[in-house]
């Protein structure tokens, strides 16, 4: 027997509120190089999320006292546009935005070789045009692609995806409704080639077994996202050719 809440989130056929299965990602579309003035940029549509990311740098640090002698400073700004939600959002940085800016920076930092650019700064601007849950993961995905587009030395791309719990079901890539009404939400950022986790947050309660399942699903989701990131970068720089054709 399902209660009203469960019925709204998942039907008896195992379909979720937006018609997806439990292991299904929302549709993802990434476009690289959308901001001409930026050194690198990307636009991502992650379900109903629409996010644009611009990367500037490495460039001179202002104020100068922030410069570090041995490495580059990474600054990240996550911002939701006033029109990104159903009710107007105050454009001033909220507590949530400051926190997301911080976790995004910390999830991107391990992938960057910041020691290659001492005394410089890299600025990452993440602007959410439309929000639908999981915007930090979508922002990380776009930011990672934008950093690669800016030509900054990276050990790996960062792919992010959330998993969560709806009643007893562990589901992949939870949307806004599932985030609000569900029982747990776990965003994960991952370096797919190096197989390292750079972000792991958990909002809600999970048993040990559920946690393991949730993490595994999120990492699988990250690997799927990575393929889309890779394809977007390849398309921008090499067109539809995935292999370099050599003369015989």
């Amino acid at each position: 027997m399902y209660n009203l809440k469960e019925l709204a989130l998942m039907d008896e056929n195992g379909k979720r509120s937006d018609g997806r299965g439990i292991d299904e990602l929302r549709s993802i579309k990434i476009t690289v190089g959308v901001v001409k003035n930026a050194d690198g940029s990307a636009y991502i549509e992650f379900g109903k999320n629409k996010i644009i990311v611009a990367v500037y740098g490495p460039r001179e640090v202002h104020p100068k006292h922030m410069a570090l002698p041995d490495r580059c400073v990474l600054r990240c700004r996550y911002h939701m546009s006033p029109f990104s939600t159903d009710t107007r959002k105050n454009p001033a940085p909220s507590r949530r935005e400051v926190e997301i800016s911080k976790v995004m920076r910390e999830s991107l930092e391990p992938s960057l070789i910041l020691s290659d650019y001492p005394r410089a700064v890299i600025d990452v601007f993440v602007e959410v045009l439309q929000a639908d849950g999981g915007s930090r993961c979508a922002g990380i995905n776009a930011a990672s692609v934008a950093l690669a587009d800016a030509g900054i030395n990276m050990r790996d791309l960062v792919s992010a995806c959330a998993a969560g719990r709806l009643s007893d079901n562990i589901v992949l890539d939870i949307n806004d409704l599932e985030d609000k009404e569900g029982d747990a939400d776990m965003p994960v950022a991952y370096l797919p080639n190096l197989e390292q986790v750079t972000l792991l947050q958990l909002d809600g309660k999970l048993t040990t077994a559920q946690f393991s399942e949730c993490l595994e699903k999120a990492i699988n989701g990250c690997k799927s996202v990575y393929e889309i990131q890779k394809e977007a970068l390849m398309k921008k720089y090499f067109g539809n050719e995935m292999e370099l054709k050599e003369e015989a």
Partner: protein
Amino acid sequence: MQEIKRRYVIPGDKIIEGNYKPLMNVVKSGNYLISTRVGIAEAGKDGVKVIPLSGVYIPRVNDLVIGKIIDRSSLSWDVDINACFFAHLPAQDVFGRDFSPAKDDMGRQLSIGDLIIARIVSFDRTRDPMLTVQDKDLGKIPYGEFIKISPTRVPRLIGKRGSMIQTIEQATQTRVIIGQNGIVVVTGRDPDGLSLAAKAIKMVEEESHTTNLTQRVKTLLNVQDPVDPEQPESVNASPGTESSTQPQPQPQPQPNNESSTQPQPQPQPQPNNESSTQPQPQPQPQPQPNNESSTQPQPNNESSTQPQPNNESSTSNNSKSGSSSKEKHRNDSSEKSSNNDSDIDQKEKKQE
């Protein structure tokens, strides 16, 4: 040792497994070499490297850059060279060793907003780049059209041994100064020529990764491939810069003009036929003071068929003072870029 083919990579891609030396834009992770940039990976005898296709300009010693004076102190100017750091041009470099901040007025030589072409004399992790203008063709740029392109596109704009830029210069009757930092200044008297050159440069930047670019630039510039009977002769005579830098087997005449328009991959014993496709004696609407270098690329056949001791001597036959160092710079740059270009050139050739 395991052989790898050149291939496209993005950050994090495993290029090769084994004990190889990581060179440019490659790091070692465990037993793998992984790429750190979007680009083309290749393994040579020395090690593995990735030729990047994006990125900002990172200063290097001896690079020729175009910068803008943004500030001045009592002893030096600060110059924006389109890099992560501002460069410094010491006043002594301009005024000489007897410079005195009390006596000499720095504003008379260079003021804020002026464009200069300079060479980087020193740069490392701990210090900002230091510039010099004490060389031929260096110093203030009095006038011209300012164009900014991606520094990674500079080798493509120069082309193999300066072929692309020579095409643009000759077709538009302009002089194009290219900084390694991605700043380009176009000078010339004809406004139409200036705008056409700017358009061509932007086209090269935007479509640098596409195939058959040289031909499309020529179409844009309305350059006709010569079909006169002298063509095979001019093809036979390879440009002096090439023969001087790389002694090659005697090139074969290319009766097919189409194929001769494309730059050939390095290993093939083909001449650089780019110059042969340049419009031969240009209709000169107006004599231009700055066009020495732009009109000179047609090499003297006699001199070009003989190996020259160095680039400068081969190019100085036709050029007046100043153009030789510019040519040298271009040749240096195109040498640096030859690997980067060769794959695109190969694609162009294949398409044809």
